Structure formats: C-alpha cells, structure tokens
C-alpha cells in the first residue's frame, strides 16, 4: 500500500508550520493592497488578522487559499506552496468567505453534500459527516430547509459547517461574524472555540472587531498592507502603559493646555473631550478634578484595550477609515479585475 500523503504530513505536523508567509506582496495596478508581510502560524493556533477595512486582510486570505496569485513573495500552507502546489493547499484548507457563498436554492444538506462531492469525502462517510457538521453548528433540524429561508447567522453557521466537512487542517475565516448581531456572534465564537478544543485545526481569521481579536492566541495588526505588530493580545495591550482617562470639561482647549503643563502628559483631543494615558487611572481622577481650574463635566477610566493598541501603533482608530474606504477599495479592485481580463 502506498502511504497516504495526508497521513504522512499529519505525522510531522508538529514541525511544519500551518502557515508560512515570506515577503508577500499583492499589487493592483500600482496600488499595493498587501505590502510585504511575513509571519508564521503554528498548528492548532488561533491566529487573527486585525485591521480596518481595506487594510489588505481579504487579499491576504485570497492569496493564502490560492484564489489570487501573489505579485511577489511566497506563502506555504501545511508546507505546500500556494502557487506551485495549489491543489494540495486547496485540499487541506477550508474557507469561510466574507461574502455569502452558499447556493440558497438548495437545502442545507444539499449544499453540504455537493461540497463533500467536490472534496472527495469518502462516500460511506458523507452521511455521518454531514450529520456531525450540522449538529456541530446546531442546524440539524434545518437540514432539509432551503437556505434562502435561513437567517444571516444560520447561513454563517452552515458555511462554517461546510468548511469543516472535509476535515481541513487550516480553516480560514474572513470576517466570520461581519454584520451579525452580538448574540449570534458570541454563539459562533463559542462553537469556534469548542472546535479548536476538540479537533486539530488551525484557525486563521480576519476581523476588525476588537473583542473578536481577543479570542485569538496571537494577533497581527495590519494597516495599509503592512503588519504593524504581531503578538499575543496580552503582550500587545501591555504596550499601552497604564489606563486611559477620558475627560470632558466646560472648555476642552483650556483644559488641554492645563493638563499638559500640570501633569506632564500629552492629551489627545477629540470631539468628545480629552483622552490621557496615565499609569494609575483611579488615583488620577480626584487629582484632576481638584486641580483643574476648568469645571470638569465627566471623567471615566478604562483599562487598555486592543483599540488603544491599534491607535497607538497606527495613529488612527480602527474604524475611522470605515465602510467608505472599504467600498472604495472593493470597487477599485473589482474594476481592476474586470479591466485585466
């Protein structure tokens, strides 16, 4: 019997990184969507790409799962080169796209069965695996319903079930909970975290939700196609020293000057007031209320979050580039794709 290549690579899973990226670049007509990124993801890790819309997250995922050719650099998934061995890569990954990719004129079960067919799931196992995948994502009672009658959260869960059907080694999730309500989001996350407990699968996800990124073992913060930082959420937060104090006063401009001279911290001013970074937030509050000559309207203290890390590293909030830039990039990329054809 010839050794099954699948089994052979499982045997050395500990030594081969799940994902290995070296100097990856994607250019669209002079515009660099991804600008030379390198990183490694270990097997079994939950790895997150955190960044605003249009930062290059989706383009990276598309390159990793062989849908787009890199302009430069290389990427390997389970040791397979994404360009030269794209079939091997495709066999070993599951993908949950940002936009829906189900056939909504088919039932949930049919969607899964067709997936099993093209991924060569052994015929005897198909029925069991579909049952498992559906119950895993708590959809077993909707197996025979048309997908068009599903809610957004159910469709997402079905896509995750489908992505897992062929037992991939790496599961890519591009903005897995985008546009879903908080309840559905936490439910999906609960399933994903249970998944990594029970199955040996590496999760690679992109997100611009900070709370979602907190679930990752490691996070790469990506902005304008470059990795600004890569570490565990805890270490990243440790980069922001102390607490953030938000201060609202009767005259913010005057307060800014006063805070700067009296407490030797550099406040950031926004529409809501001032934001200061201080070592001991709780102790700072009575002092600032007592010593400022401008009347203080409100003070609040926050422990550092990934939002603060992002702001500190990139100089802007994750959301201020917002949907408009995202849309612009997408239409731009689409138009380019069309023109190039």
């Amino acid at each position, binding site marked *: 019997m010839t050794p099954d290549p699948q089994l052979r690579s499982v045997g050395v899973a500990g030594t081969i990184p799940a994902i290995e990226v070296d100097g990856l670049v994607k250019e669209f007509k002079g515009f660099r969507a991804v600008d030379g990124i390198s990183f490694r993801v270990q097997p079994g890790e939950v790895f997150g790409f955190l960044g605003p819309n249009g930062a290059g997250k989706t383009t990276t995922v598309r390159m990793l799962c062989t849908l787009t050719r890199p302009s430069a650099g290389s990427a390997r998934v389970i040791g397979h080169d994404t360009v030269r061995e794209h079939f091997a890569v495709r066999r070993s990954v599951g993908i949950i796209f940002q936009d829906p990719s189900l056939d909504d004129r088919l039932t949930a079960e049919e969607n899964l069965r067709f997936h099993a067919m093209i991924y060569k799931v052994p015929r005897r196992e198909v029925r069991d695996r579909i049952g498992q995948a559906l119950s895993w994502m708590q959809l077993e009672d909707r197996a025979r319903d048309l997908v068009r009658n599903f809610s957004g959260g159910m469709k997402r869960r079905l896509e995750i079930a489908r992505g897992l059907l062929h037992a991939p080694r790496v599961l890519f999730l591009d903005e897995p909970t985008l546009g879903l309500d908080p309840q559905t989001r936490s439910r999906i996350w609960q399933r994903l975290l249970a998944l990594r407990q029970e199955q040996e699968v590496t999760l690679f996800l992109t997100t611009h939700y900070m709370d979602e990124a907190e679930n990752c073992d490691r996070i790469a913060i990506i902005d304008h196609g470059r990795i600004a930082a890569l570490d565990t959420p805890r270490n990243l937060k440790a980069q922001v020293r102390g607490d953030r104090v938000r201060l609202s006063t009767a005259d913010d401009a005057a307060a800014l000057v006063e805070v700067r001279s009296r407490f030797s911290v550099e406040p950031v001013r926004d529409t809501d007031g001032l934001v200061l970074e201080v070592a001991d937030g709780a102790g700072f509050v009575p002092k600032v209320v007592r010593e400022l000559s401008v009347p203080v309207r409100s003070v609040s203290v926050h422990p550092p979050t990934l939002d603060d890390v992002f702001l500190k590293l990139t100089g802007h909030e994750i959301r201020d580039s917002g949907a408009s830039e995202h849309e612009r990039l997408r239409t731009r990329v689409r138009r380019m794709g069309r023109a190039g*054809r």
Partner: protein
Amino acid sequence: MRFIDFACIHMIWRRDIIRYFRERSQVYGSISRPVLWLFIFGMGLRGYGRVGDVNYTQFIFPGIIAMTSIFTSIQSAISIIWDREFGFLKEILVAPVPRTSIVIGKGLAGTTLSLIQGAIILLLAPLVHVRLPLANIVPLVLVMALLSFALTGIGIVIAARMTSFQGFGTIMNFLIMPMWFMSGALFPVERLPWWLSTLVRVNPLTYGVDLIRRLVLGFGYYPALLDIGFLAGFCCLTTALAVFFFNRGEY
C-alpha cells in the same frame, strides 16, 4: 486524469438539474416561448404558402426545436453569472477541482436540460401533423445534444467575459437572436439575397437546423455529412473557447 474529475462533473450537473426542477416558473417559461412561436407565428403565416411538401407550421417545427436548444443551453450556462453574483462560484473555484471539469459539467447540464425541453416540444409534433420516423429519434437526440453542448460553450464564454447581467440583453439581441433568425429556422435558405445567404452559410446554427429538419421532415438544403462536419467542428471550437476563457478568468 488531470482535467477530468468525474465527481466534480457529476456535482455541477446534478446541481443544475435539481435547481431546474425546483424552479417551476422557469420550466413553464421556457416551454411557453416555443409554443407561442409554433402556434401563433406558425399558424398566422400558414395560409401564405407551403414549402415543398409541408405547410409553414410544419416547416418551422424543426426550427422551434433548435430554438429551444439555443435558449435553454445559453440560459443554463449564463447561470454562472448568477453564481458569481451570489457567491457560490467561489465555493466551486476554490475547491481542489480542475476548471475544465467545471466547464464539462456545465456543458452536460445545459445539454440535459435542453434535451428535456426539446423532448417536450417533440411531443407537440402530432398537433402540427408532423410524423416523426421512430428510427430517427436516436440520431435526433444526438444532434440536439451536440448542438446544445456547443451552445452551452458559447454561454460559458459569455459568462466568463461578462461580470454583470447588464450586458445580457445586448448579448441576446446582438448574438443569440440574429444567430437563430439567420439559421434557416423560419424561412427556406434558397433564393435569398447574396448578403443574407452568406450570413446564413457562415452561421453554424444553420447546419444544426438543417440536420434537425432532415431528421424530422425528411428534407434538408445541405448534404448531411456537411451538416455533421460543421456541427462537430462548431462544438469542438466552442468547447475549447469555453475551457480557455473559464480557465483564464480570475474571480
């Protein structure tokens, strides 16, 4: 083999068949068009002359069968644009399957659906007093299949080049309808002005219609071997183009 993946072909084919039977309105719609042409248009012109031994309704009957093949196969292939629009295409394209097999699956699905529709039209034959020799049924199915597969290829090329449905009407009006009109489906291809005669002769559909007419009514304008040769060549060409363009596109 590297390009042939039977599981993939089977999946693509089966999905289209399931969707076809699930969408009843589409079934009725695609039958109503040929019925309108045959009974309203055909009956309307019936009193104005005969073509050889047959009346006008009988004369256009083979053309209506060809029309059913044309529209069904093109429509079936064009569904790729819907799949792109609604995202399902990504699911197929990212799977470890050769794109050539996707094209073949689509081609077979278009052919199957077109044969089903064509068979329904054939059932109308007694109503227009066309008596189809039983021995011709199998060759007729083969010809219709060849024609449909070729036309699905055209549909795939269109779908691979077009990124939205906006261009669909244009394609229909400037490619599909003219091809059908200039195929001799609605009028005899003799005694035409030279320019129309030329267009008819370069139109591959002409030979398909001619072959169907020969099998259904017992007469044709070109030698059968010429028809078969043209049709087979046309089928190879469109399949090659479909594979080429579908493989090339980045989605």
